[in-house]
């Protein structure tokens, strides 16, 4: 692994986050391209391992960028990949949040919120089905996913138990 240019890493992630409309999955391919193909900082297998690890860690899935930073350059790397994540949220989002709170009844704000709602739900449904297909390899997996849906919709059990049950099912080889 070559020496890591932290400034370049920081600036690249910063630029990416400003165009990451629709969430982290939109810029994932470019992060992969930059780190693996352009800079040779990680192998593709390392990238996939780090990504999977962050998916199963508690917290937002986007934390894989933090783990990449840690892997590349320790705490300085963490800062270089994680701080850019915060920049759009602390500038643009605060600005939009401010106007949304200040003028909650502005017709344009209401039209945007109402108009986007179904699109958001459709996109989340797409994410859920893509994820379902990615993690399941046979009918037993799908059955567990659908069983989870049924339990969540009908019971108010703490879902951490469901996750624990999933882990157990994985260990004993049921799924």
């Amino acid at each position, binding site marked *: 692994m070559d020496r890591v240019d932290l400034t370049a890493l920081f600036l690249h992630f910063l630029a990416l986050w400003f165009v990451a409309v629709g969430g982290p999955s939109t810029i994932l391919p470019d992060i992969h391209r930059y780190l693996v193909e352009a800079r040779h900082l990680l192998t593709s297998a390392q990238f996939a391992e780090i990504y999977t690890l962050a998916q199963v860690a508690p917290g937002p899935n986007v934390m894989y960028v933090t*783990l990449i930073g840690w892997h590349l350059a320790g705490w300085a790397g963490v800062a270089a990949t*994680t701080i850019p994540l915060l920049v759009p949220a602390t500038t643009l989002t605060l600005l939009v949040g401010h106007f949304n709170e200040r003028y*909650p009844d502005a017709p344009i704000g209401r039209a945007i919120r109402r108009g986007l709602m179904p699109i958001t*739900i459709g996109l989340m*449904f797409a994410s859920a089905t893509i994820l379902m297909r990615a993690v399941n390899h046979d009918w037993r997996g799908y059955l567990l996913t659908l069983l989870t849906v049924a339990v*969540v919709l009908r019971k108010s059990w703490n879902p951490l138990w469901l996750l624990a049950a999933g882990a157990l099912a994985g260990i004993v080889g049921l799924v």
Partner: protein
Amino acid sequence: MEQTESTKPRIGRFALFLTFSRITLSSFGGALFWARRGLVERQRWLTEREFVELLSLGQLLPGPNVLNLTVMVGYRFAGWTGAAAAVAGYLGWPCLVVIGMGVLYQHYGALPQVQRALAGMSIVAAGLLLATVIKLAMVLPRRWRPWLFGMLAFVGVGIMRWPLLWVIGALAPWAVLAAWKEKE
């Protein structure tokens, strides 16, 4: 700022920090399920509808949509320091956890049991996300137009696998225009 916030409950920064810490530390396999559960079901700070509305704005803005939601919820209840407290809770812990897991993984990651447990958990996590979307879809008005836009967004991204930006760019203006004309 004071007068616009008078109708909303005033929630302290520490409560925001704690709630978002709790949400994020429960968030295995994605934060959306736990954000809705924490904010709508447990704390009742937002209605189902307000949750989807803020999430939609978060989706339109660059960056992770639940992070954007976190910023807006913190700001709504306690100004910009509230937003800072909510974000500190939401991102601070996972940052430490993920690094801790990175260190552990170097030692134990290759164990097949660990990998199989992780696989089982992601299968359940997919179900949690799907259930959340079904619950949220219940707030959509029972009219054909919103459901059509939702269906088009799903087909474009979920089935055709077109880039998200194109799909949003193609659908959002029409959806907003339709919502604008619908209400006086």
